């Protein structure tokens, strides 16, 4: 912990630590080109961090919306290698916020842990989120992410209980709080116990605490922001993008669709005005 002096790429790129808006988009959905533009649009809509999903055949932490997005992306030939290649293009396009790669562990293992961490650095990826490794299994990859300056994002869940402290204390980048038991996807109601859960998490966390899983309306965004440092919005963003699928896939209609998408996203995170 003696090297804490130097800031990570993630930290450098993160512009604030409160009221964070972290959208999740799926690489290659609807097309790789569109994904680059969508990333930029998210930033324009106020995103503070971008979660860039890598499609996986067996996304067992995801609900139907993200599963289907992954299916579409896979059929576009998207994979871990290709997803990383999108990041430099996003930078070129003007994306300056931290980009966190969201991928299941198996493709990472297949790629090779060190090679992968190195590739993330080369491609200017700032953070990594692997939904299927808990703290106990994260040692190996953590060694390499630290070596290559990538923040390994941790998750806590409402049932993490005495694990919260351990997880929160070593959290990097931001701490991903799962809003309630279950997979990704919209939820009608927010977990009523979320406030006390978030208090506990914030008590231990050195990094911003963002809440994800099921946030899909401005009301929920407001509610959650009140108790945390930010919101992560996945399935709802995927749905907004999917509504423009055809227009986004086509270069000639893309700009218009992105504009509409931007205003929809703004409405979602900033409310009716």
């Amino acid at each position, binding site marked *: 912990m003696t090297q804490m002096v130097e800031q990570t790429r993630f930290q450098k790129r993160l512009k604030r630590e409160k009221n964070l808006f972290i959208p999740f988009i799926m690489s290659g959905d609807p097309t790789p080109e569109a994904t680059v533009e969508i990333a930029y649009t998210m930033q324009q809509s106020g995103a503070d961090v971008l979660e860039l999903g890598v499609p*996986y*055949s*067996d*996304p*067992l*932490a*995801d*609900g*139907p919306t993200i*599963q289907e997005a992954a*299916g579409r992306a*896979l059929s576009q030939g998207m*994979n*871990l*290698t290709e997803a990383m290649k999108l990041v430099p293009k996003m930078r070129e396009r003007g994306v300056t916020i931290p980009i966190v790669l969201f991928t*299941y*562990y*198996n*493709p*990472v*293992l*297949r*790629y090779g842990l060190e090679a992968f961490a190195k590739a993330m650095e080369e491609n200017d990826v700032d953070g990594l989120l692997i*939904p*299927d*490794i*808990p*703290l*106990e*299994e994260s040692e190996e990859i953590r060694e390499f992410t630290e070596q290559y300056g990538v923040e390994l994002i941790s*998750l*806590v*869940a*409402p*049932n*993490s*209980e005495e*694990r919260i402290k351990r*997880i929160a204390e070593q959290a990097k980048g931001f701490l991903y709080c*799962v809003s309630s*038991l*279950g*997979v990704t996807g919209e939820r009608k109601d927010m977990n009523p116990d979320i406030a006390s859960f978030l208090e506990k998490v914030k008590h231990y966390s050195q990094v911003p605490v963002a809440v994800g899983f099921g946030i899909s309306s401005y009301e929920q965004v407001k509610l959650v922001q009140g108790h945390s440092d930010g919101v992560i919005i996945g399935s709802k963003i995927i749905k907004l993008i999917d509504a423009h699928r055809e227009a986004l896939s086509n270069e000639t209609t893309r700009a218009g669709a992105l504009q509409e998408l931007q205003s929809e996203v703004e409405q979602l995170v900033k409310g009716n005005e």
Partner: protein
Amino acid sequence: MSVVYPDNRGRYGDYGGQFVPETLMAPLKEIEDALNEAMKDESFQKEYRNELEHYSGRPTALTYADQLTKTLGGAKIYLKREDLNHTGAHKLNNAIGQALLAKRMGKKKIIAETGAGQHGVASATVAAKLGLECKVFMGEKDIERQQLNVFRMQLLGAEVISVSSGDKTLKDATNEAIRYWVAHCDDHYYLIGSVVGPHPYPKMVRDFQRVIGDETKRQFKEKEGKLPDRIYACVGGGSNAIGMFYPFLEDDVELVGIEAAGKGIDTPDHAATLLNGTQGIIHGSMTYLIQDDHGQIVEPYSISAGLDYPGIGPEHAYLHSSGRVRYESITDAEALEAVKTLSQAEGIIPAIESAHAIAQAVKEAKQMDPSETIVINVSGRGDKDMNTIMEQFQEG
């Protein structure tokens, strides 16, 4: 038994572990604690043994295969008759154990995944018996192919939930069961059907299946006054094999696990995970699996629905790497031929899964000396496979 794995992280050497979303860590811990406590509790052990004996009909027979032995002219062949279990396969051993544990944990609802329906039927059965609610996740494709088993589960009072994600088969049913569990782990128990999944499942399922090997050891000693030279078992997820092998791991007995070679191990259509797969993560466990260059899981193939799984239990991955167990593979065609062989020689129609073990044993027994002895684990009966077998023989 001094085999010291899994370690406290649930690892068998490099394999096993708990590669799951954070949300599952608490329920897994809850199960692990309950299991450790139950296994030490004589009253739980008694209840488990009681159901095995008075409900499932254990001990299952160890049958001397008189005619098969004579025809082949080699090793003396015994059959461990897991086909005689209630519901027709070894699957019930584990389902009973886990359902008793679930009940002890105060869970009133269980969920299970199933491919062909065998583990679904076993789960629905114990749920009925113990008065638990039961949801069985099953791929849309499998539901179509296995209508009778679907109806059987429903008749037993279970709800069969159609899974339309992914390839709509076992792997996806398992994903979906895990997803459902993540959301409902407060009052649901997830009853996994093989030695797969995150720790403590591979260990727990093994411990509920080791009754196969324990009985075999005792029965074989009674009959032959020694231990067998070789033991054969088919490997899908690996539960019948590990159940049979585990009590023999430290003995001088050759153990042979047989994977499904489908249309051939050199074709894309196989399910030979250890022999032809690569290391990775599936359903929460580090093990071997069938995947592409990008780490996407590939749909496996075998004529037998119970071996048609892209992963394998982590303990097998370990036993493969350590060399303690020899793994072989058998094609669809060889397995079908073995169904016929055993049916006509012994009047026992085996499950196609089990026929993989039989086929390999038949190959090897011929080469062995009549003074040598082998045991084949007949993991299940073939009734469930009659349509498949009939179609195959009518085509061929």
